[in-house]
């Protein structure tokens, strides 16, 4: 057992308060670890004083929601509502043989019931608001997920279509090279002659102003046939699915030109890709 000295009496109050640090703290903790019963006794006494200090602040009524959450998390199924009226400090003496004392009981019960009803109504109102907010949030989430699902489905369909063309037994690949002002651009067309379908990818093409469009052509027997118009994304890439390719075996070349928005029946603008 450690010897208790007046030095420890001086350290204990600050220790109880949590203010002790440095060498003082190490010294007292060493002493406490040695099992000083007097220090323990004094700490408990200080604890009582600090309880008073803690309780010296003005009380703040918690929200019914906090109470409900605590009891719900603790698994209390249907907790009684908090008392809506102040608890009496001491029971009020009721004089015997007074007839109104019997009236006081139903009146008090009615009062308590009314208070409970008011509390319950307020609490239900809050619950309903909370549930509505939750419902709206979930509806927004559902809509966002629906949109994502729609995009994912469209992606999956595109992938499946491309795969069907690329993996067809007689599928052909045509490389398109950049021309003129876009020497760095490139393109690739996959054609399934039997299925009469093709898919075209463009890479590194510059974005166009709103009044212009890229137009894809195939050239058969010296005659260009439009396969559709397209714009590129900010990375300069694009994908064009061509659902009906006629006489694919006769196609001599694929090309991309820059045309007025909406496209034209015959190419008029600069050719940027050919292969």
């Amino acid at each position: 057992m450690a010897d208790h000295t007046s030095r420890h009496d001086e350290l204990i109050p600050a220790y109880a308060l949590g203010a002790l640090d440095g060498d003082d703290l190490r010294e007292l903790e060493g002493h406490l670890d040695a099992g000083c019963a007097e220090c323990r006794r004094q700490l408990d006494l200080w604890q009582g004083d600090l309880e008073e200090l803690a309780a010296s602040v003005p009380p703040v009524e918690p929200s019914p929601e906090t109470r409900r959450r605590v009891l719900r998390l603790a698994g209390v199924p249907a907790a009684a509502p908090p008392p809506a009226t102040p608890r009496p400090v001491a029971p009020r003496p009721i004089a015997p043989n007074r007839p109104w004392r019997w009236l006081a009981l139903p009146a008090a019960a009615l009062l308590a019931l009314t208070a409970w009803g008011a509390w319950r109504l307020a609490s239900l109102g809050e619950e309903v608001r909370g549930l509505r907010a939750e419902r709206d949030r979930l509806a927004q989430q559902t809509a966002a997920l629906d949109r994502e699902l729609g995009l994912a489905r469209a992606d999956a369909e595109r992938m499946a279509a491309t795969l069907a063309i690329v993996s067809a037994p007689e599928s052909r690949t045509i490389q398109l090279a950049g021309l003129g002002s876009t020497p760095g651009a490139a393109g690739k067309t996959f054609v399934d002659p039997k299925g009469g379908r093709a898919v075209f990818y463009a890479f590194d093409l510059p974005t166009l102003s709103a009044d212009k469009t890229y137009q894809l052509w195939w050239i058969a027997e010296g005659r260009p046939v439009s396969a559709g118009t397209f714009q590129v994304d900010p990375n300069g890439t694009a994908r064009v699915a061509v659902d009906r390719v006629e006489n694919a075996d006769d196609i001599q070349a694929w090309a991309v030109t820059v045309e007025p928005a909406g496209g034209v029946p015959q190419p008029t603008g600069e050719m940027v890709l050919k292969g």
Partner: protein
Amino acid sequence: MDPQPVREIELMRRIGAGDGDALAEVFDLHSPVVLGLLSRILGRRSEAEEVLQEVFLQVWMQADRYEPERASPRGWILMLARSRALDRIRRRESSRRREEEAAEDRPQLRAVRPVGTERLEEVERRSRIASALGVLSPEQRRCIELAFFEGLTHTQIAERLEAPLGTIKSRILLGMNKLRQALSA
């Protein structure tokens, strides 16, 4: 022992045995003063309510660790609350930010329960501690409050108040002893 503490100790025993009604009763009994303390320490009402919830869940989980011979149930719960609130404060990014927020939010704390609905003994206790605090010098009181409500140590208080460390130590020691005398008078 007074009947009220005996009853409160019994409630703690029941909570330890998993009695949810006892938890509801202890919550109704002590949550306003605990929330008062948390609001004083944390400043922000919403954060104080969040910690209040954690404190009572801790009471629910650990009531069997409560030792009646060492503290009253209220004292035990208040010290749990103080410890949790100070942990929060220490986790906050900077003390400056905390002070700004506390200053902004402090008016909300005026929404206290009217005195008429409080238990009379609570009002009496508070007035007793208020007069006990009144016997401290403003410097002693400030040092004790910085340690208790803000979790500062001797050295940190000396830095905050730009005062010598020895002065702070003696202010706290003298202040605590005065407080003890005033409370036991």
